[in-house]
């Protein structure tokens, strides 16, 4: 009889110790997910940064759209400057932009006109942020995101380098994505590629309209209508020794068929390099004596999605 209780007691003892130990090690967060999270939070605190970004869209290996750009951003002063090149369907369009005290300035390489969007008083008077409540909000959001990510966070691999930097990578293929994402993504993709069909805006230069043809980009994308499936999502990031993200890239592969039944494999590649933390000064432009035109439409609305 005594032996039975001994066995039972030791079973309970050992298993509870192991359970607590493994639970704590799971909670301690040595995963790449937590490393990335902390670097992301740290990177958010920089006051200025220089960004080099590139985006590429391919269909069955053929490059459809290629965009690259660089920007200098000062978060605390709310100023920025940069330039971007977009190549779609063999036509290249370049533009440069400045966000400075007087407002936003856009210039296309195709013309000498500077397009200016003056900041109205309403936008200028931004609300003073309540730091404490914002922090609490983000804390709660973090818990919710952690719970949603759940066990997927163990997918994030971390590779420590000798110079103190870290390589973070995660790759999910179709069967590893949450069922909800798998169910909703095809509908979203179908909608996103369908929209431009009806939009037949004439691209003639109207007064006050910025000469940038986003239609070229949209019509280059194949319209997927059936068997749409996310094949693969891969994200990579480098975190430098001072816990800033200095390189980030993402790949998304979607497969599907268009109306004629032809199979497409569309891949989107995004990458960004960050440098000059807290030591970047955005360029400014002096508009005196330049050909300036006021913009009537809200530009940010229709080319914001081009990256």
């Amino acid at each position, binding site marked *: 009889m005594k032996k039975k209780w001994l066995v*039972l007691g030791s079973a*309970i003892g050992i*298993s509870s110790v192991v359970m607590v130990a*493994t639970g704590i090690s799971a*909670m301690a967060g040595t995963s790449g997910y937590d490393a990335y999270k902390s670097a992301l939070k740290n990177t958010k605190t920089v006051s200025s940064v220089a960004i080099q970004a590139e985006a590429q869209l391919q269909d069955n290996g053929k490059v459809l759209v290629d965009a690259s750009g660089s920007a200098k951003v000062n978060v605390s002063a709310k100023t920025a400057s940069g330039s971007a090149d977009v190549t779609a369907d063999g036509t290249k369009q370049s533009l440069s932009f400045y966000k400075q005290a007087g407002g936003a300035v856009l210039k296309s390489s195709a013309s000498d006109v500077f397009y200016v969007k003056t900041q109205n008083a309403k936008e200028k008077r931004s609300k003073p942020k309540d730091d404490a409540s914002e922090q609490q909000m983000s804390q709660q959001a973090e818990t919710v995101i952690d719970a949603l990510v759940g*066990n997927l966070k*163990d997918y994030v691999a971390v590779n420590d380098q000798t110079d103190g930097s870290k390589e973070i990578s995660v790759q999910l293929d179709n069967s590893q994505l949450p069922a909800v994402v798998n*169910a909703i993504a095809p509908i979203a993709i179908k909608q996103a590629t369908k929209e431009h069909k009806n939009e037949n805006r004439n691209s003639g230069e109207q007064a006050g309209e910025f000469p940038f043809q986003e239609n070229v980009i949209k019509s280059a994308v194949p319209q997927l209508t059936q068997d749409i499936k996310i094949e693969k999502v891969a994200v990579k990031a480098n975190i430098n020794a001072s816990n800033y993200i200095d390189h980030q890239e993402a790949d998304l592969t979607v497969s599907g068929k268009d109306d004629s039944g032809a199979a497409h494999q569309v891949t989107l590649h995004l990458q960004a390099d960050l440098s000059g933390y807290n030591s970047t000064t955005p360029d400014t432009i002096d508009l005196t004596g330049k050909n300036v035109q006021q913009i009537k439409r809200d530009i940010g609305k229709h080319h914001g999605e081009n990256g």
Partner: protein
Amino acid sequence: MHSWKAGYMGELLLLWYRRKIAVFGIFSVVVPILLAASFHALQPILGFMAVSQSFPLTMLGIYTSVWIPLFIFMAAADLFPQEVASRTLKLALLRPNSRFQVYGAKTAALATGIAALLVLLGIVSLACNLFAGTLAGFAETAAIVKAYIASFVSMLALAAVFVFTAQFFKSSSGFMAFSIVLYAAAKIAPFLSSAVAAFSPASYTDWYKLWLSQTVSAGKLTTAFLFLASCSLLFFSLGYYKFVRKEV
């Protein structure tokens, strides 16, 4: 050994002869077929997710988070509180076997039920793939089998927790209601505090996904496996402790 086997077979037969268990089994087979058929039918209209090679894994996700836990509550309610309520537990204990054998046989019968559900689901969803013409290759099938085995481990841990919980109840309906609330609470808790997730077997229902990835380190898998195994053993032992001290 013989009496153990007899007890186990007896418990299995008892489960088998209950109509609701049979209904549960039939539903488990029909649901994937219905879903596969509807996905297939909706696909041209909505471009909805096709019955793809990963269909068995999509189904596994649904089953391990909702369907099999429900089965665990129901079967555990039948095996323990129900027998106490209808005063039939005495009959099992009057037989020439120890309380450990009775308890072990009941738990083993529950585990067999879970395994049977998983096997059924695996076969049916793979058959759906066959009919949809998207049969997985050998490597994919191996991955699917691995995921199903991993799910079985996490379901065992969950079953152990609820077998332990069942010892506190004298009526099966009370136990059912409490289990559903407890399980829902365990699923919601990580949204309020992330520390809970690390210690709750309910947050491991989808851990089979870890086995599908090449990037997850062996250490992670070992830790998670040890957690589930120790959780199973702990609650199995605690449940036994309660069961032994029960006055019938």
